[in-house]
């Protein structure tokens, strides 16, 4: 089957080797303030990869700042993306995206005004499965220009992808070769990080280790800073090693209103308000204005939505401390 999707985020592996060669491998202080991290690292033509999955461990604070600064990211992987990629759409410059799942908060519903971006033909979509996008990141992470996989074969998902069929020289079987995906920038929210960028993630890892290896620039946002001894004393704590990372931003509650596993649950009420606002352009614009543009920082946004009291409730729900109803 010939495929007709646009190939996005791919680079020649030798060119990328040359790029990675130049990245600093020194133990350097990479701590940045949130506004500086966004203004220094996010470029208008970037392909952005976002860590986390669904309503879990997404780098909300960073993405809100991207909106505030009106950075017009060029494209993005919609990889079981919900609120995160919705946000990236808002600045409205995307023309092409890689999509395995997007514009829906899973069972909670779909933001109507953002779905319109797709339904009016303004965005060209290259289709993938979640596995295919995870494997595209993994190909790049392994230093390969492709990986053979056994998904997508025979479907329109294959046809509208940018994959290519190949034959295994041992089994003679047909495989789909998915191309490496090298995002220009990756943003990943973690539980702990040190000043050099060593980072620890608890719970499901999604594709974040491979994304950090695949991306040209890697920004870590973290619930809290820890000393490097935290990693040196137990090197298995290092989910993402320092030499992959360009900047570290400390943002407690930085994933709110999404869940941070073992820390705080997602705020389902916020997401319901978000979906309701997304029923019309007018209500949505007002919602984004109030919750993002007019908030002087991320903590004003949290305050607006119940503040530290709400975070405490979400922490109790996450830890099952008070007979959580979720």
């Amino acid at each position, binding site marked *: 089957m010939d495929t007709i999707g646009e190939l996005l985020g791919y680079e020649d592996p030798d060119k990328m080797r040359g790029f990675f060669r130049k990245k600093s491998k020194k133990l350097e202080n990479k701590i940045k303030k949130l506004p500086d991290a966004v203004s220094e690292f996010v470029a208008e033509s970037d392909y952005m990869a976002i860590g986390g999955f669904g309503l879990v461990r997404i780098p909300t604070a960073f993405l809100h700042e991207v909106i505030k600064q009106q950075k017009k990211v060029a494209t993005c992987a919609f990889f079981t993306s919900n609120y995160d990629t919705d946000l990236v759409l808002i600045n409205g410059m995307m023309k092409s995206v890689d999509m395995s799942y997007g514009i829906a908060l899973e069972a909670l519903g779909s933001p109507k005004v953002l779905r319109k971006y797709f339904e009016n033909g303004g965005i060209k979509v290259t289709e993938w499965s979640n596995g295919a996008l995870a494997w595209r990141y993994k190909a790049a992470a392994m230093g390969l220009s492709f990986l053979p996989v056994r998904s997508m074969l025979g479907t329109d998902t294959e046809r509208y992808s940018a994959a290519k069929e190949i034959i295994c020289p041992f089994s003679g079987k047909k495989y789909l070769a998915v191309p490496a995906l090298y995002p220009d920038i990756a943003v990943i929210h973690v539980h702990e990080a040190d000043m050099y960028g060593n980072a620890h993630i608890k719970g499901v890892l999604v594709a974040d280790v491979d994304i950090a290896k695949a991306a040209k620039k890697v920004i870590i946002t973290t619930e809290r800073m820890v000393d490097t001894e935290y990693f040196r004393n137990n090197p298995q704590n290092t989910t993402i090693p320092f030499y992959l990372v360009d900047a570290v931003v400390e943002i407690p509650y930085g994933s709110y209103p999404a869940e941070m596993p073992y820390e705080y649950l*997602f705020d389902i009420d916020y997401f319901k308000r978000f979906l309701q606002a997304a029923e019309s352009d007018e209500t949505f614009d007002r919602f984004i204005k109030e919750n993002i543009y007019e908030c002087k920082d991320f903590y004003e946004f949290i305050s607006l939505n119940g503040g530290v009291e709400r975070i405490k409730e979400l922490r109790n729900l996450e830890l099952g401390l008070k007979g959580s109803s979720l």
Partner: protein
Amino acid sequence: MNEKYYNEMELMICAAARIFEDGVSVSVGTGVPCAAVMLSQKLYAPNILILFEAGGIAPLLPSMPISVGDKNTMYKALQTTSVSDAMEMNQRGLVDYCFLGGAQIDMYGNLNSTIIGSHDNPKVRFPGSGGANDFASSAWRTIIVSPHSSRRFTNNIDFITTPGYLKGPNAREEAGLPQGTGPYKIITNLAVMNFDNDERRMALESVHPGVSIDDVVKNTGFELLIDEHIKQTEPPGEDELKILRNEVDPYRVVIGKKAQ
């Protein structure tokens, strides 16, 4: 028929829960599939191995997850790993069942969850494959849950997001998909269907209590294979409903919804 003491969603969940043999492995998402697997675990298959694509393996699932990586999917799990690891477990042949839905389905069990209309200018844009295509490619048996209407059950599907038997016998193998895999059962608010081994086409297996074969035919946009002995779907038992309502979904997150 008596007044029904259960709703369509409860019936679908119970019918699905009875499919699993003890000790099988299942890739699930949120919603009906998760409720069915949880019910099965409590009643029929205590050793069922549940996995979520975000990386949660064998959690104890105290209550229904809302997002495929949320805390319930990793509560007391035996491992928390990655999307690629979970998908590779499917690709290695370790996953017996997966459990999917879709906006459209054709007679070969192909699913559309991408678009209505043309790809370049869609009338409706759905979320896309997510992990569905991977699961249906590599898990041994695909179970599909869907509301039943001729709009949804149609051979004019706008986009094959997720492979059923594609164009019929041998088409999966010719496309390169792993041998011996494919759709297994479809559970709707009207009936249970399976697939003919030779033709790979959808066949009626049982109709739900109060539903006639004709109801099913009228609500299916293509010809269903129907043999002489169509049974009635076993309605939910008392035990099933008690556990489903009290333990699996006490907040009626899933069973409180309409099937359509």
